[in-house]
């Protein structure tokens, strides 16, 4: 809501500086977003009276005016404005005057010397009106500096109005707040219309078929209208409130709405057929053309204003093309109705039309303010358009809406906000907001809330008003900060933080990515029978679906960095991925890691190597072991985004996730030009569920370890892991560790064979093991390996 300081001052005495005023408004909940001085980009402009106007002898569209600029001698000014006429007061730019960038000079126009220039409002930068010269009122004195006539510096204040305060979408509403905050009275302009005897011929009857959508409909006919431009003061206020001046009737309905917050609509009365108004629901599919020339197809819930033959307005939203006020309009029917907020909101949303009117009705106008708004506008129309009332006002209000009555206990007030206010103080604040206060028999304050405050329906709403006007700043800071530690910490978030710390410890950098990705990026990560979670209203296709894997984010981050000469990356991220299985959305938290490129840059002591499968395997297993998730077994990876160098992880029959090389084509689709991209993706909640609750200590052996190395010749296709498992299984109770310390495939061993060497450690908890015992255990192992795998012991 934008308003000029000068307009506000019409209703409330403001002695604060503009900065103080802005602070006061902000601190009472009306956040001032900006304050701008109204520019007057001119100098040397004086008031002048046009004494005479003659047609220019050599130009059809120009007039030659004699003007009195308060200098004794009349001056001759050539003027092209159609509205220049003898007797009017208008601003004159004398030679030497400045209009923005332009300096006015003595000039010859079609053979006649013009000693200045009569200015329009747009030339002066005061409004956007440029159709004719600016018309000054009779208070202006020829020769007076225009700046002086305009008065002191003015400001435009832009205030953010929260949706609960429809009353503050009006200048009077804002003035009321200033009055309450600064403890001064509020002046509301009177509005009453004296009507002559009701002229039956002008009568327009009103019927409401939808009192649920339109609880009240008031209206009044006016005749003898003369459509003309609005006076400057009105155009100026509208302009700085962000509305265009059109003509006096349209402007007055807008002005009245901005002033008191109640939207109005003016019909050309001669275009209302059958002299009747009917408020009804639209029929589904009914068509209607609004005054902006757009045709709409309506739904059955839309509230329509109709005359005897057809709809003439979308109730509370916009009038119709068929009944709008035009230059020839001589009689008016002015509507001031109250429409139910939800109905307006629904229609406005569905039709995609939001207007100043719908904005106010959907937030809640004042049902008991229709007649005031009607008569305020009517009196302005009478004053500025020469109109006469035609008959009495009509007012259909089948079920009047009464002010809310709320009992408020002072104790409740002080308990909720933590203050020690007295009843007198609370009542003073409420009264300043026009909430009438009395006392109940139980000692509460009985409050009667005016209907322009639809947001105040409960005691707590009044408490907010008291706190707000009292000042949030004056409410103390409680010093009793909570120290109670009775709650147990959330183990799931703690687990997540532990995983994050571990992965960072493994040399990975945590990233933080957007959750929204493109369908192209997300699709390859979808599981069987799953589909994408699509936004109905995305910002762009690039961010139109929820990520289906955290690996997408990591791949995008890798591409971003590789494009910036950082080819070697180790990233991780924990976050949610989602997809649809059938109709149901599944949201899953994932742990993901990515290794890209090489282990680092060459250094003086070592050459980097390309990341490989065993690097990502190491991260996966180190993490599981650190989390106490022991005994995970490997299976095949799930998902076509994995290359064949990949594996799945299972624990207690549950799928934990996968790791390995990512599919080359997929990697390329992310514009990453290296095949060395290794990922890890784990199911957060499966890990969390399987995590051990307690961590028990295992005794450190007191007796010496007996090491024993074996070197074996195996078939190339025998998995080393299987051999290791077999060793563990057959090694007996004293085998405490198995460690592969050498692996060789190549010329030194026969074709189709590979050589592996394990270092085994044996140890007993009770005694020092004898060599024979260990040798017996090794023999058992070797026998098993020979049988199971055809393993041959290599002599070294």
């Amino acid at each position, binding site marked *: 809501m934008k308003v000029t300081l000068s307009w506000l001052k019409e209703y409330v005495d403001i002695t604060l500086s503009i900065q103080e005023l802005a602070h006061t408004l902000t601190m009472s909940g009306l956040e001032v977003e900006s304050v701008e001085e109204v520019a007057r980009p001119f100098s040397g402009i004086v008031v002048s009276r046009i004494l005479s106007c003659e047609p220019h002898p050599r130009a059809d569209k120009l007039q030659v005016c004699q003007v009195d600029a308060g200098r004794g001698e009349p001056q001759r000014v050539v003027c092209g404005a159609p509205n220049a006429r003898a007797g009017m007061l208008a601003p004159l730019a004398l030679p030497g005057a400045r209009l923005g960038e332009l300096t006015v000079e003595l000039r010859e126009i079609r053979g006649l010397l013009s000693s200045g220039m009569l200015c329009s409002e747009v030339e002066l930068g005061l409004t956007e009106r440029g159709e004719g010269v600016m018309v000054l009122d009779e208070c202006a004195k020829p020769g007076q500096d225009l700046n002086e006539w305009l008065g002191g510096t003015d400001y435009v204040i832009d205030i953010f109005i929260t*949706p609960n305060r429809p009353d503050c979408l009006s200048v009077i509403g804002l003035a009321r707040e200033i009055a309450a905050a600064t403890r001064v009275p509020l002046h509301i302009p009177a509005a009453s219309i004296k009507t002559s005897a009701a002229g039956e011929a002008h009568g327009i009857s009103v019927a409401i078929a939808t009192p649920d959508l339109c609880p009240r409909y008031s209206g009044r006919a006016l005749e003898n209208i003369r459509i003309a431009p609005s006076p400057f003061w009105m155009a100026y206020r509208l302009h700085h409130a962000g509305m265009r001046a059109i003509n006096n009737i349209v402007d007055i309905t807008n002005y009245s709405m901005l002033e008191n917050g109640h939207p109005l609509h003016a019909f050309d009365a001669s275009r209302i057929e059958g002299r009747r108004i009917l408020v009804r629901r639209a029929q589904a599919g009914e068509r209607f053309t609004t005054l902006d020339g757009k045709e709409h197809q309506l739904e059955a819930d839309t509230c329509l204003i109709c005359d005897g033959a057809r709809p003439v307005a979308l109730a509370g939203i916009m009038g119709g093309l068929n009944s709008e006020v035009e230059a020839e309009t001589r009689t008016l029917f002015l509507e001031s109705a109250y429409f139910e907020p939800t109905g307006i909101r629904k229609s406005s949303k569905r039709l995609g039309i939001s207007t100043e009117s719908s904005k106010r009705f959907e*937030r809640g106008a004042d049902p008991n303010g229709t007649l005031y708004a009607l008569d305020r506008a009517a009196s302005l129309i009478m004053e500025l358009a020469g109109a006469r009332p035609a008959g009495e006002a009509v007012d259909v209000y089948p079920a009047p809406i009464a002010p809310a009555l709320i009992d408020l206990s002072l104790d409740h007030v002080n308990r909720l*906000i933590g203050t020690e206010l007295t009843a007198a103080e609370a009542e003073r604040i409420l009264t300043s907001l026009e909430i009438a206060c009395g006392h109940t028999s139980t000692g509460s304050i009985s409050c009667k809330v005016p209907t322009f405050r639809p947001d105040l329906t409960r005691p707590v709403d009044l408490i907010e008003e008291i706190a707000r006007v009292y000042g949030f700043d004056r409410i103390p800071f409680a*010093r009793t900060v909570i120290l109670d530690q009775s709650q147990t910490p959330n183990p799931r978030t703690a687990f997540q933080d532990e995983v994050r710390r571990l992965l960072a410890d493994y*040399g990975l950098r945590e*990233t933080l990515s*957007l959750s929204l990705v493109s369908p192209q990026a997300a699709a390859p990560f979808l599981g069987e029978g799953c589909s994408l979670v699509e936004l109905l209203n995305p910002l762009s296709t690039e961010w139109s679906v929820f990520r289906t894997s955290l690996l997408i984010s990591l791949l995008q981050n890798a591409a971003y960095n590789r494009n910036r000469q950082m080819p070697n990356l180790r990233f991780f991220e924990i976050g949610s991925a989602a997809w649809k299985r059938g109709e149901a959305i599944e949201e899953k938290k994932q742990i993901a890691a990515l290794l890209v490129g090489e282990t680092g840059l060459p250094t003086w002591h070592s050459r980097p190597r390309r990341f490989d499968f065993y690097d990502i395997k190491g991260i996966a297993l180190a993490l599981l072991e650190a989390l106490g998730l022991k005994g995970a077994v490997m299976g095949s990876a799930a998902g076509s985004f994995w290359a064949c160098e990949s594996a799945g992880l299972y624990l207690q029959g549950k799928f934990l996730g996968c790791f390995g090389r990512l599919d080359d084509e997929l990697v390329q689709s992310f514009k990453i030009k290296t095949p060395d991209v290794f990922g890890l993706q784990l199911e957060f909640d499966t890990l969390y569920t399987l995590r051990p609750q307690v961590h028990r200590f295992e005794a450190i052996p007191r007796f010496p370890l007996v090491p024993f190395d074996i070197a074996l010749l195996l078939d190339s296709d025998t998995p080393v892991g299987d051999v290791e498992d077999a060793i563990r299984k057959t090694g007996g109770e004293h085998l405490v560790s198995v460690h592969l310390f050498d692996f060789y495939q190549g010329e030194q061993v026969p074709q189709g064979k590979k050589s592996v060497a394990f270092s085994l450690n044996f140890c007993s908890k009770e005694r020092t093991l004898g060599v024979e015992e260990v040798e017996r255990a090794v023999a058992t192992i070797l026998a098993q390996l020979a049988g199971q795998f055809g393993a041959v012991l290599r002599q070294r």
Partner: protein
Amino acid sequence: MSENLSRLLKEIAALEKEFDLRLPEATTASELEQLKNEFLGRKGKLQSLFALLGRAEADERPHLGAELNRLKELLTSRSEEAARSFQHRPKVISMFDPTLPAKYPSIGSLHPMLQVMDEIKQIFSGMGFRIEEGPEIESEYYNFTALNIPEYHPSRDMQDSFFLEGRQVLRTHTSPVQIRTMESQKPPVRMIAPGRCFRKDTPDATHSPTFHQVEGLVVDRGVSFADLKGIVLAFAQKIFDDKQVRVRFRPSFFPFTEPSAEYDFSCIFCKGKGCRFCKQSGWLEISGAGMVDPAVFGFVDYDPDLYSGYAFGMGVERIALLKYQINDIRILFENDLRFLEQF
């Protein structure tokens, strides 16, 4: 003294002399090690003298044994002394260059925004708040309706939302977690909900369609606005580690709180005097807060006559940007290694 004894004593003396002669020849640690082995090792020269002890007369053995032990100690201490001197000896300086780059371990890190989130979690955990979580894809019921934001109400427009089919949204705040928590437990409630939120904002220096919030909720008997002010002030001073930080509350509107407030911190850069960070106002706008609206209690079946509560929110990015003096929120989500490496 037997002949045997005097011969042995001579050999002991000779061995000592030999060691003393040979010691300076050992100029590196490994040479010294070799020398020690030769004299003091299991098959070393001293050991072979010990072996002769058996052939000595029984009454001469103690004397001889003592002499041999003395020599052993002597040689040991001299070689140790020599070893120590190697450590300080400037002899190898030509090969040792301490200015060569270090062999760094592989360094990982936590994301700076999440580090700030961790800090916020820690501060509130320390004040007895429990951390709660909820889904990022929410029903309209939890995201709006139960927070007293009815379907056809202009307050739904306050947050530009991403909608999904089936009346679901990407949560626009972590406030739905309040509802879920209150549904599952009776008062007192003291929780924070850190998490990811979404709003349909075109990315620019101050907006991101994905952002993070920490929302706090306290419900108990007799909780007041003054308590809310107290907790927010305590937090403000902790997170910026500055007892001078002040907090300002301004009236505002949120459908789920009544009274509602916006709260500001006094500018941490200029101490409230006015600078470019606070747009000369002396205050940094942080977020919203207020007393839980009784209508919200209605949705979770809490008795509003018995309980009152407060709620507050905060944008974690906002605090991270302030803490690190970053001027563009987008850098947090770019994951540029040169940025991540700084934290």
